[in-house]
């Protein structure tokens, strides 16, 4: 791997991690697409283009980690809401455990070698 590949690596890591960020956002309440993208883009470095969140939501739905329902909106047409499923909750829990260990290991090595 070359150092110039950092952008690509970050893009891949971002893509992988965002899925779980979405699941985490849905733990507290059901949300619609715009709400999810707004929360994600409020966090730095997480979303480069907001539109890419929608394909990701579709994938989560196809994988059975979230499901969706339509709800009337006070402003404009009905909205599609996303809700985390039990298997989504399990996936998130296992990611949180593994992520913590992964992050700690990388941080430990990086801080030693600095």
């Amino acid at each position, binding site marked *: 791997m070359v150092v110039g590949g950092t952008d690509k690596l970050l893009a891949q890591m971002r893509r992988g991690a965002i899925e779980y960020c979405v699941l985490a956002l849905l733990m507290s309440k059901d949300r619609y697409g715009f709400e999810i993208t707004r929360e994600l883009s409020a966090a730095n470095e997480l979303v*480069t283009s907001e539109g*890419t969140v929608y394909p990701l939501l579709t994938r989560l739905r196809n994988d059975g980690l979230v499901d969706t329902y339509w709800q009337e909106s006070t402003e*404009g047409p009905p909205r599609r809401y996303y809700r985390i499923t039990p298997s989504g909750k399990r996936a998130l829990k296992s990611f949180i455990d593994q992520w913590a260990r992964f992050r700690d290991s990388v941080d430990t090595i990086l801080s030693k070698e600095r």
Partner: protein
Amino acid sequence: MKELTTSDRIVEEYLDNLRDALRSVNPSRAKEFVAEIKQHIADARANLVPGDEVAIRNLLERIGSPIALANELEETETPRTVGGMDRATPWLIAFGGFAFGFGWFVGLYGLWTSKTWHIWDKLLGTIIWPGGLLGTFYLFVAFAGSENCHGVSRLGQVVAALSCSSQGLLVLPRAFQFLTGFVMVAAPIFTMFRLNEVLARGYVDESNRRGIRLVKSRRSARTRTSTHVVWIILALMVLFFYIFVAA
């Protein structure tokens, strides 16, 4: 009708470009995605000062370029998992017949239970030919015909050849005999290539009732057209063949 503002026009142009970029994506999925982006823009615009063109442009910039979104959508589609059975099926369809005829039936089972192939490919795999290349062999035996001569042989000498009659393909001109022979051999091989081609390039999208979604569809739009041409030629040849043999 309400007149479009400059901001509306910018949004419309963006959505048009997006639809254009999504032409290679499964149409129902593309439509759904455009609707999601449209809703996103509407939600975001609710918080903007009306007529603020710069804000609209910034908003669209944040959403992402149509090309980038189309690429992302293609990457996000779950790839079809190709099972070992799917890989074996085209070969079993072509050559399985030689395994006591049994292999072809296994291939047929694989073909019809798989989600990889479209109904037309399943029919193709079944009809041309039953038994695969073994079917070709039987077609030769059935249709190649024979030449019967009735004569009287005495002491190793043919005294009189009273009559000779030909049956089957032998009644046809030699060039046509060659052509039909070629078709009989080439057709199941073409079928095998066709099934393998679909296997190699296709995604199956559950939401797409018509079956196959193509991965690199920008290129394969052309591939599909050429496949259709080959299909039509093959169908005509088969039709021609049956008519002549039956006649």
